[in-house]
């Protein structure tokens, strides 16, 4: 099998591009990091990739709300390109700020519709502050190609705006019913939770990640690219040297690649 090609986009303020590209490589893809401007100059070159990633960071400073400026620029000149990319079977992964960008464009949760417009938002944590901590999540993969075979996963989260809000509680119920709420923060007993700190941002129903109706677009707040070796685990020194924890974050990347085979 020819290794699929993953494009990792960066904008001013993106800062997780290197480790995200590294994670794709470890999982078996060829990855390249491109400045957003470069893609704007030749949007057609996106067709040479099978995977597009919006990594974490603070694109354009996130000053006007997380992901807002980058999504406005995408709407301005790249919406058609992205729609085509998804329609032709391309995968899109948005991590942290990348998730915020996908939600602000409308690509999540509704997918690459003819008229892209946001119907949800990732807003300020209830705690009103940026926080880094590992979170435990349950996965209900549904159609999501990234989460195949995962039922429970721990990853590091680090954000100030991760509370997933829909325009109404009914809209969230609909997403649940559609099987698009694929990752939820859980409490120590394993139940989805809105309680801080198990849920770091106060997302209703513990929403941590959602996919589009096709399952080919995934956005999540926690960082899978930061758990791609056993020693990324916060407690690896407590494990026997010959039985270190398995790097669950890497599975999202290998799953995506496997789905393209």
């Amino acid at each position, binding site marked *: 099998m020819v290794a699929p090609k993953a494009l990792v986009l*960066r904008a*001013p*303020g*993106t*800062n*997780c591009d*290197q*480790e995200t590209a*590294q994670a794709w490589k470890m999982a078996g893809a060829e990855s390249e990091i491109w*400045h957003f*401007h*470069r893609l704007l100059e030749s949007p057609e070159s996106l067709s040479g990739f099978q995977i597009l990633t919006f990594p*974490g*960071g*603070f694109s*354009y*400073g996130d*000053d*006007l*709300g997380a992901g*807002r*400026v980058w999504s*406005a*620029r995408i709407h*301005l000149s790249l919406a058609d390109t992205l729609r085509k990319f998804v329609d032709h079977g391309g995968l899109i992964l948005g991590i942290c700020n990348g998730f915020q960008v996908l939600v*602000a464009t409308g690509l999540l949760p509704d997918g690459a519709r003819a008229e892209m*417009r*946001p*119907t*949800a*938002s990732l*807003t*300020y944590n*209830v*705690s*009103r*502050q*940026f*926080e*880094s901590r*590992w979170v435990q999540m349950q996965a209900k993969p549904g159609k999501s190609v990234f989460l195949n075979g995962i039922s429970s996963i721990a990853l*590091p989260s*680090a954000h100030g705006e991760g509370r997933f*809000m*829909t*325009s109404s509680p009914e809209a969230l119920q609909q997403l649940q019913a559609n099987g698009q709420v694929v990752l939820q923060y859980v409490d120590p007993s394993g139940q989805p939770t809105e309680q*801080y700190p198990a849920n770091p941002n*106060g997302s209703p129903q513990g929403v941590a990640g959602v996919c589009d109706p096709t399952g080919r677009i995934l956005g999540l707040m926690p960082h899978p*690219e*930061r758990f*791609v*070796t056993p*020693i*990324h685990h*916060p*407690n*690896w*020194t*407590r494990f026997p*040297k010959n039985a270190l924890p398995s790097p669950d974050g890497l599975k999202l990347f290998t799953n995506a690649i496997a789905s393209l085979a």
Partner: protein
Amino acid sequence: MIWYLEIVPRNALIHASANAHREQEAMELGLPGPWSIHETRGLIIEGQISKSSLEGAAIAALLDPVLETGYIHEIMARHNDSELLVQSSDTPVKTQVVHVLPKPGVTDPTGDTALGILKSLGHDIQKVRTVRTYRIQGPAAFLMDLVRRLLANEAVEMSVIGDLGIDHLQALGHYVFKRLEVPILGMTDVELMETSKKGQLSLSIDEMRIIQGHYAAEGRNPSDCELETIAQTWSEHCSHKTLKGVVQKRGRSYRNLLKETIFAATSKLNADWVVSVFADNAGVVSFDDTYDVCFKVETHNHPSAIDPYGGANTGIGGVIRDPMGTGLGARPIANTDVFCVAPPNFPADCLPPGVLHPRRVLKGVVAGVRDYGNRMGIPTVNGAVAFHPDYLANPLVFCGTIGLIPRGMSEKSVASGDLIVAMGGRTGRDGIHGATFSSIELTSDSEIVSSGAVQIGNAITEKMVLDVLMQARDRGLYRAITDCGAGGFSSAVGEMGAELGAIVDLENAPLKYEGLSYTEIWISEAQERMVLAVPPDKWEALRALSESEGVESTVLGTFVDSGRLVLKYHGEVVGDLDMHFLHDGRPKVTRRAESNPVATVEPNYGISHDHTQELMELLSDENIASKEWIIRQYDHEVLAGTVVKPLVGVGADAPSDAAVLWPSHETYRGLVVSCGLQIHAGAVDSYRMAALAIDEAVRNCVSVGADPSRIALLDNFCWGNPERPDNLDRLVEAAEACHDISLAWKTPFISGKDSLYNEFLHDGQSRSIPPTLLISAMGQMADVRQAVTMDFKEAGNEIWVLGYTQAAMGGSVWASHFLNDPAPIPVVDCDLALKIFHKLHEAIVKGWIRSCHDISEGGLAVALAEMAMGGRMGARCSLRDIPCEDSAAIDTVLLFGESPSRFIVEVASDQIENLGELWAELPVGRLGEVVGAGKPGHDRMLIKGLDQSILIHSLVEEIQTVWKRPLDWFPKC
């Protein structure tokens, strides 16, 4: 037209927690309520745009269309001030509206971002500024206090009560060129000093006389620009005239204090793994076959006293540029931060005028570091916070950055003919006189006279510069680089061209706004700027690369082999300085040091102690208590290289001794980052204080697995006025300790910085900070998979103490609680410590140590408690076998003493014999064993005394509650 776009949530509940939090903060700052404070954010937009177009743009880019909505009002000029609040009554008033916006000229990243996107959407907009609008109900008499103490920072923000009345944004005026001279030639000494003071030059009379003499020989007066350049270059901040000056001390005289102490040790060691020391923006050592690493720690104290957020924000932003400007440019991979502040429970009504409350200072500096470091995508992995009442008016903010640089790129040179290129942020009026400001004492007026020295950073600009630089470096597009720090272009260009000369066309510098004089352009400390020496044939490629990433790069002039620094403004020469005079003309400062010994008293331990109670008191001392509230606000895992994180253990809430970084995944080689700080001992014995700080930094490093033969150190001295002989004597003693210990342990100092004059003048009385020496350590380990953390791992494992306990209790946290008189300070036994470090390392490499924690603040009892909390396990221990000097055989001393070079280790039963053999020659004793009740919340820590009576018996859960409470400032939600 000027529009005000007010952005409000569709559902008020979404932001309710923020408002409640602010109301609580008002009460904490001593503002009698009750308050109702409601905040909205907004933008003020100046440009040719209709209301409906602005509505469309707002929905497309300026607000969150799902959760927010906006109101757009046109702003009219206001022609009278009659609406200002009359402060007469303390009865509740109707809702008052207060708008807070950045002062003209202050950097406003959000406004700039909004301007950028509005232009991209095709709108004709000139300027955008952010504004916060507060609707307040509460006692009118305290409204102004509320605004001043909580809602606005007058150093950088202005508040408008009532309607916004603005007819245009950014009214800074137009600059009309006029070449200015300072007529110093005929001046008397009194006039010379007046000139120095009035111009905020901070030049002494000796220096003024030398300058006068120099210009007399040139037969002319200096221009204002020349005099400013000399003042910046000669400032304490830039030239370190005290540490590099002559010091006369009884029995010994130094021609250059730094050279004969700290530098001397490094040169005598001449370690083959040291690459570049005390020469560049950061010290560089070799790491592996591919990379070198560099480290720099800076202080940003005076700006942080006035504006904690902006001061710390630009402090971290500035130190990140140091590795970026080291050699041909290093990639920053980790940040550190250390704060020294007054205790947060300081009574608000006792604050001297002009002094911010320590709670506000701490919250502000944490937010400042957080917002810059997180945006840059650099993990903040290590730090400390120290609390002492004498930091009240003069808090300390230390920020450090480690960078990774390909081998062979640590040297740079400038060639005649190279272009002087400025890259990054535009030049504004921010930070004028920062270098000279940090070299004088603060007064209650500092806030007013010096706020020009306060700056606001824009991390994204710096990140963009970094993105360009790393590509430009690897393509060889420049020959040398440095950052614009204190002194701005004047320092950067002056230093880079020191061996050659330079011609600078000041009008070429891109400006944030009109109205800057040539001198302001030259000395502005606007942030996020780098200066490069670019061979002319590489310029086009560099320009194109910059443009492709949206970064501004501009040719300012040329380096020329003339020995002169020539400054021009639209062709007119406004400065023509002799480089040699500028860099070597400063008269040597001679200062006198004289010891003022403090008598120490042996403590009387009396008979009865409630040791459990004393332990609880120490655990709730802010110096010891959990700093989780701070650490969690930093991203410490971005770049995916932090393999021992700052918080460790089962619940990821116990304090790691040091962070371990795994910078390059091609090998398993690791970097270890730690620090040491002893704030209680310096006033009594600063030699021993310095030794204790170095010991702490090194043992923290060794504790997680660093190889003790590969540890590099950094020194940061923060001191009071060095012109006081006793202050200076303490400084000399501390520097001597650095020399001696560095030499004994073969741990070279590779970089350092001093910040003197940390005093506050109030009512004619000068209050100095405690003599403060931060030691930062950067260790290395061959394989990060050998790292050890401090949390107990398994019930049944043995607990040992390694090291020798002395009787001296001085400088301990216990002493600060329970003794009135200064007690003797413990000494570092260099030979013994070195043996301990190496033998411990050997055991760690062999995998014989399950957990390891150094004994520091609070002594053995606190260290055990922390290990127990980390593992969510108990311990059963006895003090009987602790190796100690005879006079230290006292329960209190063994529990809470802070003798250096000691560790607690956890050993599995199958390694006991091996370890016993390896450590046969060392002072080591069995403390007890790890116990686990198997039921969460039921584990206990039990410590028996010398006579086997029970001294401490507590639930680990209870210990944890006490330890977490003091700085648990997490918003309750």
